[in-house]
């Protein structure tokens, strides 16, 4: 059976009604969340970390809702729709992430809990006694998060577009502004509790959407064998470096993109924030075991790209592939349900990202450089306002700048985020590297990474050519290698110039699990 093709846009009152129902439900939940596991929201660790009281179950939903964003749900299948197997680097990426989380994040949680720290920059400052290095970590996090929030809005925009809101004559701005104002208000009033509570609804809806899609659509299309065959034919007609298998030239870029992205993920402020809000190191370890359930879902979502090809969904913009496939395959009421799931997939991470960025800005930029006499209540109030500002900035960026701008910045953001790896992750194990050396390495990595990406026309991969062989390497990893080299080489020099380093406020025991409870 073939599905109808076209622009992928369908206006339907039922779909819109179902969508609106879930949106209102979630808004109510968002405001109600302030009362959930009630805490004093005028304390930053209550507003911005949910009081560090989330158990394994809540953390699983929160992290799942946080990491598998609307942008992922749209961009990964879009890449698979456009070029095929290469887009599947997201699978090894999510496989690599959890062993890394299992080993490193419990140590970060222990040290941060012991000292009342709420950001990775807090940890770096305590560990190395260096405000400069902490500032570098904080600035990197805020810079990388802004475009990521903007991309969640782009995901939201695609959903509105597919529902044919244009036909209502409301333009593209109004629904986005309404959605974001609501999001901003409940994040302001409830903090991290809002996305944590909404994540339950979002993840449940997303699992229903994905399971329905990967069962029903292939049946209509004649089974998975037929889907892969049809995709292969579509790529053969298209030519170039596309196909349901990788071309040998793509091996290195596929592997290094997966590895580099995995190293970067938990350095992002939204991932750190959700991790630190867990109630203990065992909760984090248990989640490293159970979060891969979402990776299975991500792999299935990626396959939607092939299903769109097999169903002859013909869209110019790859990001419309999944919304168009949903419109072509499902009755309006269920399409509305699916679109609501994707839209919530934008709102949950956007809330956590803005909270993560606000925590960093308040603790590690505002407090040390603007006003170091902040009371706890003032600190929490500034963070709330910053979270508003961050979201408003992202909204303006999406409304008034080309989408490509946010996509390019997000790409650079991943490269930047990797550059705090030596300071944060190595810092969890050793203090051998000196703060000034790490700072120099960070600077080298940031400059080299940005310059290489720029020189490649804002592509993530740099290709080395040896004779006939091409080796594409993820620029983030190249920059990280240089970062490490500089940090290691500069450490003995820094030690010579300044014999005593700043005091370390942590002890070896701070990184271990507490004996009881």
């Amino acid at each position: 059976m073939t599905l109808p093709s076209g622009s992928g846009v369908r206006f339907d009152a039922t779909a819109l009604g179902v969508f609106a129902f879930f949106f209102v439900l979630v808004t109510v939940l968002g405001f109600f969340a302030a009362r959930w596991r009630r805490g004093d929201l005028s304390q930053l660790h209550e507003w911005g970390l949910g009081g560090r009281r989330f158990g394994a179950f809540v953390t699983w939903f929160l992290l799942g809702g946080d990491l598998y964003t609307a942008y992922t749900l749209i961009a990964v299948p879009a890449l698979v729709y456009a070029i095929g197997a290469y887009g599947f680097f997201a699978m090894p990426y999510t496989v690599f992430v959890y062993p890394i989380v299992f080993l490193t994040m419990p140590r970060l949680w222990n040290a941060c809990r012991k000292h009342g720290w709420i950001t990775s920059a807090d940890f770096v400052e305590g560990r190395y006694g260096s405000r400069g290095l902490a500032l570098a970590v904080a600035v990197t996090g805020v810079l990388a998060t802004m475009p990521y929030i903007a991309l969640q809005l782009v995901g939201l925009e695609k959903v509105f577009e597919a529902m044919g809101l244009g036909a209502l004559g409301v333009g593209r701005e109004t629904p986005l502004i309404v959605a974001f104002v609501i999001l901003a208000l409940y994040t302001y009033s409830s903090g991290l509790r809002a996305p944590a509570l909404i994540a339950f609804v979002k993840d449940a809806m997303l699992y229903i959407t994905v399971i329905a899609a990967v069962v029903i659509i292939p049946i209509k299309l004649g089974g998975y064998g037929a889907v892969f065959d049809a995709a292969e034919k579509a790529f053969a007609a298209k030519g170039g470096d596309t196909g349901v298998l990788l071309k040998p030239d793509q091996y290195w870029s596929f592997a290094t993109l997966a590895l580099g992205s995995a190293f970067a993920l938990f350095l992002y402020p939204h991932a750190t924030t959700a991790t630190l809000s867990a109630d203990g190191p065992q909760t984090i370890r248990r989640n490293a075991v159970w979060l891969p359930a979402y990776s299975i879902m991500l792999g299935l979502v990626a396959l939607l790209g092939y299903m769109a090809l097999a169903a002859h969904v013909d869209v110019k913009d790859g990001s419309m592939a999944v919304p168009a496939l949903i419109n072509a395959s499902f009755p309006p009421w269920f399409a509305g349900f699916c679109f609501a799931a994707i839209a919530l997939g934008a709102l949950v991470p956007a809330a956590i990202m803005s909270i993560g960025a606000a925590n960093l800005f308040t603790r590690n930029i505002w407090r040390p450089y603007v006003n170091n006499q902040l009371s706890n209540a003032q600190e929490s109030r500034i963070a709330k306002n910053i979270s508003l500002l961050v979201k408003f900035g992202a909204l303006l960026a999406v409304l008034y700048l080309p989408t490509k701008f946010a996509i390019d910045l997000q790409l650079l953001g991943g490269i930047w985020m990797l550059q705090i790896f030596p300071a944060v992750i190595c810092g969890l194990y050793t203090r051998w590297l000196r703060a000034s050396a790490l700072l120099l390495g960070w600077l080298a990595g940031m400059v080299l990474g940005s310059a290489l990406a720029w020189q490649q026309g804002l592509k993530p991969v740099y290709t080395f050519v040896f004779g006939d062989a091409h080796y594409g390497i993820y620029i983030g990893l190249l920059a990280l290698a240089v970062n490490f080299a500089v940090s290691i080489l500069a450490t003995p020099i820094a030690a010579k110039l300044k014999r005593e380093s700043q005091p370390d406020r942590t002890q070896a025991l701070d990184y271990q699990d507490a004996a009881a409870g």
Partner: protein
Amino acid sequence: MGRLRRFLPVLLLIPFIALLWVPFYNRTQPMLAGFPFFYVWQFAWVVLAALLTWVVHRGWRA
């Protein structure tokens, strides 16, 4: 057994080797339920990596 347990986290290297060795699994055959091997292998490792993490979680006393 007690001394061996310290080295249990080494198990977590296996998924990295399995998935970074791209030429090994970039093939169509053997297929499973219509899925080329490239996809079967990647889905399998999501599950296997989680299992290994679970084993390390249960057994590891640092």
